[in-house]
């Protein structure tokens, strides 16, 4: 499912918002999550999961073409940890699909 398919699905499942407003709402929710992470805040959605930043220390990498050492600065990377309900539902349906 892509973002536009998500917008379409949400538009069908609720009646009070026009598709245009659903589109703005989807964008706003994703922006809010991105902004929180950019401010180094955690995001916790009960039953879905949490987003947090993981720290990557600086290291010396190599230019794969020349073999020359390159300094790679420390950085943060976004990390998602699925919540309990998400883990259980995704796993149960996965097991059912296999048998």
């Amino acid at each position, binding site marked *: *499912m*892509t*973002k536009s398919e*998500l917008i379409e*699905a*949400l538009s069908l*499942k*609720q009646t*009070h*918002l026009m598709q245009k*407003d*659903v589109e*703005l*709402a*989807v964008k*706003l*929710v*994703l922006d*809010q*999550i*991105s902004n*929180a*992470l*950019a401010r*180094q*805040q*955690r*995001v*916790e*959605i*009960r*039953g*879905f*999961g949490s*987003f947090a*930043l993981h720290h990557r220390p*600086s290291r010396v990498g190599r230019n794969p073409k020349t073999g020359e050492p390159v*300094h790679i*600065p*420390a*950085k*943060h*990377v*976004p*990390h*998602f940890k*699925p919540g309990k*309900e*998400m*883990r259980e*539902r*995704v*796993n149960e*349906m*996965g*097991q059912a*699909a296999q048998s």
Partner: protein
Amino acid sequence: MTLTKAELADALFEELGLNKREAKEFVDLFFEEMRTRLEAGEEVKLSGFGNFELRTKNQRPGRNPKTGQEIPISARRVVTFRPGQKLRLRVSIDESEG
């Protein structure tokens, strides 16, 4: 400060003018739709944000960390998130130590 569904609903109320009940319903529906798709084995790709993908893991040996007893970890399906380029760039702030 942690961002939760309550703050997301507030933002929809303040910035888009949804009423409080609509805002709360929308936030619930948003996450429920993604969960339903993932549960059905479908990946969710949100451009500019990231992709939620599914991986199946084989059974592997594990251990009860308290007792040291060996217990197999059963085969399972899990959700992973691959942040998109745009999100990675936004959070990766240079920490000016090098």
